């Protein structure tokens, strides 16, 4: 299954909006087969921030693990946010 994030908005910044998006996505999430891959498509998103991403993507990463595939994006805010979220998951002390 592929999810187009732009359906949740094109400026994805606040925690409240990210949390709401995840709640709205729950019904779709229940339809995913246990071995099915979930692809996240960032095309059309203008701005993406760690707060929104942490509310929406982090729970999905925890739930789906390798079955969650984040598609490449040429958007700088997407690239930098994903870099940080992946880094933090493995290493809470980002800077010494």
């Amino acid at each position, binding site marked *: 299954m592929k999810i187009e994030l732009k359906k949740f908005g094109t*400026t994805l*910044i*606040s*925690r*409240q*909006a990210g949390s709401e998006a995840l709640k709205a996505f729950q019904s779709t999430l229940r339809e995913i087969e246990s071995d099915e891959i979930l692809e996240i498509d960032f095309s059309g998103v*203008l*701005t*993406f*921030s*760690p*707060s929104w991403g*942490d509310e929406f993507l*982090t729970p999905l990463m925890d739930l789906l693990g390798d079955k969650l595939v984040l598609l490449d994006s040429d*958007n*700088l*805010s*997407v690239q*930098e*946010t994903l*870099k*940080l*979220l992946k880094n*933090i998951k493995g290493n*809470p*002390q*980002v*800077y*010494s």
Partner: protein
Amino acid sequence: MEAKLLTITQAAKILHVSVDTLRRWDNSGKLTAIKKDGGVHRFYKEKDLEIFLNDLVNTAHEWMMHGVELSPTFYCSNSAVFQARLTKLEMLLMQKQGLEKTFSIIIAVAGEIGNNSFDHNLGKWPDVPGIFFGYDLDNRCIVLADRGIGVLESLRTVRPALVTHVDAVKVAFSEVLSGRSPEKRGNGLKFVRAVTIAQPINLYFTSGDAEVRMKDPLKEFRLTRGQEIMRGCLAVIEF
């Protein structure tokens, strides 16, 4: 860690004016210099120059320090107002030559800082809720400020051993720790730090007497203790 003083020559270079102009401004009171122990040489605090350079910063500073009435142009009483104005700025930046790619990172940084103000002061605003949000596209800067509890008070709820504003701000920019623990939060300012290093953005951030500067060309994370205790937080993003 004390803020260093700049010579009049250094100050003139930063403000793009002559040394004679600075002497005149000092005599007229437009920009007052510091004279050490009654000496004749003029010195300037870096922060004073930054405030002088930017009317937006000056306006935000006056609101933070003295609670002067704020124009509705700059005041976002709640996060919904902020989101709407940030989206408007996003559209303006997208159309600006040279920012076709970096606009998204500028908006993400402003969004993280502005939303931090709302998230960490929810139910705790000492007096005026909401934030100052102003921008100047000609001078390529965004200014965000709040009259909230500041970084130290926010983080001390989860790390009582924190005593100074400098230590608290260091933690805020370095560790995944949030004043809203046990919620798993606290990545906003780490993101701001990382992208400021990687992207063409300069940052000035202050809370209490802690001051962070990340500026060209080195972009190193410079944390110092200033002379003034600022309530809440103030951030200037240059792009």
